[in-house]
């Protein structure tokens, strides 16, 4: 079950990547067509920006994500003995190498994991989670994060995050050059006619909808992972109570200040918390549902 799940995740990462790359190219073409009057320019722009950004993200994902969330690394057990030892325990029982450990100075309790693979993984915890949770609860949370690491969820999320960022960057570049009057097409070209209008409308639709589609895909991916990681945490700690009471404490707390919105999907509980948002748009399953599933274990 577990190994199949890991294999499925790796496979799904490939699908997501192919899908996203196609999406990026399509958006590049649309942006190019609408704003620069050339498909080729748009596609080239998408390839260059996307390529550079992806390379950067894959080699630097941990430091980029940690930087976006204002996290600083701790390098020895003395700096936060309890956190360090709990992470060590969870890595031990999950049979993955010890990840890097980061702390975010934020009173709201939350945590996340990121990285490219279990050998280059990192976990971050807020100072709030260290203050408010006891050891058992912290074990539940870190067990959850370590499951993300072991299942390669972190790689899937990193890539999805990078590609979503590339898409919004492309659309922004197009918009800016449009508003600042650069490279605007003149409409009195010969030939054209209906086909051109249709293509124009289609391209605009792609430009408008693509970022939404990208984030929807990212969110759907993330929601499913959360249930699996909760189950994995129980498998590691053999103690559903710890995670349940941790989730209760986390869901009753105030939202985070330091969290970066685009990495919201990484956190164990949505750090931004907009209540009563449509299910389709949430990165996390409802807390009551997660707790209910844990109680049934």
């Amino acid at each position: 079950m577990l190994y199949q799940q890991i294999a499925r995740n790796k496979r799904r990462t490939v699908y997501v990547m192919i899908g996203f790359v196609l999406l990026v190219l399509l958006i590049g073409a649309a942006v190019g067509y609408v704003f620069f009057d050339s498909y080729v320019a748009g596609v080239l722009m998408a390839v260059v920006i996307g390529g550079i950004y992806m390379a950067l993200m894959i080699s630097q994902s941990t430091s980029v994500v940690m930087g976006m969330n204002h996290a600083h690394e701790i390098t020895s057990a003395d700096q936060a003995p309890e956190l360090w030892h709990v992470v060590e325990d969870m890595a031990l029982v999950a049979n993955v190498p010890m990840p890097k450990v980061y702390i975010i100075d934020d009173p709201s309790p939350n945590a996340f994991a990121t990285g490219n693979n279990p050998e280059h993984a990192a976990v971050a915890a807020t100072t709030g989670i260290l203050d408010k949770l006891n050891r058992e609860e912290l074990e539940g949370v870190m067990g959850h994060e370590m499951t993300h690491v072991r299942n390669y969820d972190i790689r899937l999320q990193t890539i999805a995050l990078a590609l979503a960022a590339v898409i919004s960057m492309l659309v922004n570049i197009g918009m800016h050059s449009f508003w600042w009057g650069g490279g605007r097409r003149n409409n009195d070209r010969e030939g054209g006619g209906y086909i051109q209008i249709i293509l124009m409308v289609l391209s605009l639709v792609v430009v408008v909808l693509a970022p939404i589609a990208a984030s929807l895909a990212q969110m759907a991916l993330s929601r499913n992972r959360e249930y699996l990681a909760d189950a994995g945490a129980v498998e590691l700690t053999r103690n559903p109570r710890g995670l349940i009471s941790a989730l209760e404490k986390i869901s009753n707390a105030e939202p985070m200040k330091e969290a970066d919105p685009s990495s919201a999907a990484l956190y164990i509980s949505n750090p931004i918390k907009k209540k009563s948002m449509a299910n389709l748009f949430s990165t996390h399953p409802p807390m009551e549902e997660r707790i209910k599933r844990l109680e049934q274990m």
Partner: protein
Amino acid sequence: MVTIIVVIVVIIALIAIYAGIYNGLVSARVQTQESWSQIDVQLKRRNDLIPNLVETVKGYGKYESSTLEKVVELRNQMTQVPAGDHQQAMEVSDQLTSSLKSIFALAENYPDLKASAQYSELMEELSNTENKIAYSRQLFNSTAANLNTKIQSFPTNIVAGIHHFAQVEYLKVPEEEKENVKVSF
């Protein structure tokens, strides 16, 4: 001609499958040995910490001396356990865990002891070690389960039989005991 090629291909395929199965068994066995050595490291670490604990606690009240003697005795017993005897090591380890707990419980009576930095550092170290023993036991059992499943299931059981792969005995971790092993403050 064609039949010869087919026969050769089949033989090569069979050898490859056999080698794959054999290597899988070997790596499963190595994993159980590795996870046992994780436990061993933690047992040794705890044995190293105990003299410090005894030194720190010794000054406080004489009625604890019997508890301390018990701990020291168990610690020595731990070093006598033969290397291969996992069950006996775990038995002594569990007794040691419970007598360490009674030392911690007695320490509740001495506020200045509890307040000392040295003592609280030792507490974190020891509880960390206790948790790691519990978790590495769990890891050992899951690697053992992995190996045992391989040895029992078809067609790996044939290769395992030929090369005398033996099943590994699980370490007993009863639910309530797991609860005790976890020292949290």
